[in-house]
């Protein structure tokens, strides 16, 4: 369990999960966190890349108060889930199914943010009998806009990216994350999440990092690297959206955010399935549920009612 220091563990409205348990996914241990009445109907929350379930510590209790057993999980290598030998999209999907299986065979509402949104969109496409409603929080990547450069220049840029990635792979054995104080870790996170308050980021450190003898370290597997390359195309996620046959709510913020996809309302509207709904939240960035948890929770509860 997370070692919380009393001074840093408080944030207005935040509540630690009411229960934590673990499920096995083909040899990888997945940490599952739950808020709300254990006998209430379940609702799943999926976090984004480089995040962890306890980033829902404010949002999840609001949804639970609407009468749900809110269930979330740490993706492999994130939060309290075990570090794996390999990480892939397909493996994340299988891990998600293990969590679904742990709450039963019936279809459940799913709310998913960022990378989790794309994962759950694919899961809803592949296993429509497991999802009753889908809420996607800025998790619909649109076609990547490449800079206007020549083929030659683009080849050079990709070569650098590849070299950096291969060099990174050569350094992974026994890699550890850099230790620091709670404030130092919060400041590092702020570089990725500049719209989030330092007070929240400090709280996140106490949930998503552990305290070693030489300082705090994020729990996320140090071998996981932000960004990268591969054959995946953003439009491969978006093309699944029209397939979804359950009620869909897509939510976007209006503010640009370095962690966001840069997806515009028109990108989504053209792919919404019949009956789907798109809502833009004024003044919010990529982390809609953290910046405006009450507004997003209200939308979710209205959608799944």
């Amino acid at each position, binding site marked *: 369990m997370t070692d919380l220091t009393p001074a840093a563990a408080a944030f207005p409205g935040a509540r630690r999960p009411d229960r934590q348990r673990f499920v096995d*996914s*083909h*040899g*990888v241990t997945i940490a599952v966190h739950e808020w709300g009445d254990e006998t209430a109907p379940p609702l799943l929350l999926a976090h984004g890349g480089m995040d962890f379930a306890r980033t829902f510590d404010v949002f999840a209790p609001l949804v639970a108060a609407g009468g749900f057993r809110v269930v979330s999980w740490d993706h*492999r290598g994130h939060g309290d889930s075990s*570090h*794996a*030998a*390999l*990480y*892939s999209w*397909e*493996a994340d*999907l*299988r*891990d998600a*199914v*293990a969590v679904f*299986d742990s709450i039963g065979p019936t279809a459940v509402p799913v709310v998913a943010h960022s990378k989790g949104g794309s994962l759950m969109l*694919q*899961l809803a*496409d*592949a*296993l429509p009998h497991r999802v009753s409603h889908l809420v996607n929080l800025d998790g619909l990547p649109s076609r990547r806009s490449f800079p206007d450069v020549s*083929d*030659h220049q683009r*080849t*050079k840029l*990709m*070569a650098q990216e*590849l*070299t950096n*990635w*291969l060099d990174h*792979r*050569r350094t*992974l*054995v026994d890699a550890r994350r850099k230790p620091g104080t709670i404030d130092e870790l919060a400041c590092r996170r702020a570089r990725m999440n500049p719209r989030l308050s330092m007070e929240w980021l400090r709280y996140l450190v106490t949930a998503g990092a552990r305290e070693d003898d030489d300082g705090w370290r994020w729990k996320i597997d140090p*071998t996981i690297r932000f960004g990268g*390359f*591969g*054959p*995946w*195309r953003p439009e*491969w996620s978006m093309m*699944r959206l029209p*397939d979804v046959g359950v009620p869909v709510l897509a939510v976007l913020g209006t503010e640009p955010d370095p962690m966001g996809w840069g997806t515009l309302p028109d990108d989504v509207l053209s792919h919404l399935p019949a009956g789907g709904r798109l809502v833009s939240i004024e003044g919010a960035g990529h982390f809609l549920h953290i910046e405006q948890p009450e507004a997003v929770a209200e939308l979710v509860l209205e959608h799944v009612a």
Partner: protein
Amino acid sequence: MSPATVMLQHNRIRLALHELRRGEGRPLLHLHGLAERSPSGVPRQLEAWSGAVWALDLSGHGASSVAPGAGYFCEVLMADVDAAIGHLGPVTIYGRGLGAYVGLLMAGGRGDAVRGAILTDGPGLAGGGPMPPSPAIATRVDPPPPGGTPDPWAIYELTRDPRPPDYAATFARQAAVHSGLDTAIAVVGVNRPPWLEAVVAEPGVIECGLDEALALFNP
């Protein structure tokens, strides 16, 4: 295990790199196909290579370890090969099937260290095709064979990975640009899945017989 096998560590995977034949000069590195393992000796068709011949068991194959919970994809297998290159120095690659695609990626990823890649037929050449396959999430596969490899999850995942032709062509282009070789890739097989059709259309890629390819890259 043969005394000529070197175990390398790639993150949390142990890789078996087999020395099939000692020799001077740049080695030929054999990459097997999907669900195969490295040969125990120099295959007859590669005897014309004048120098050392090595073979790598990719993750989840042969004497290399499996990844609990799986998550195999071709780019991480490319990094397996990079670990081998870190041990051997510059190599010429001979890749079969899956190993051909991984060899292409490696030729593009380390143009300075891959002095020619020979791509040929073998299991797993096509992968999952140019686009993601129909949606499906498998939660079970057959039990592994005695010894644990090939990992059934590796077989499942590496037959579904998308291989867009323009993505593959980018690696061929990089191999041509960064190797400085007039010919960076020789395609000697018969089959041409879409990714390989795109590769053979790139400058610096030739289609020829295996003996010609071996002679071309022999140091």
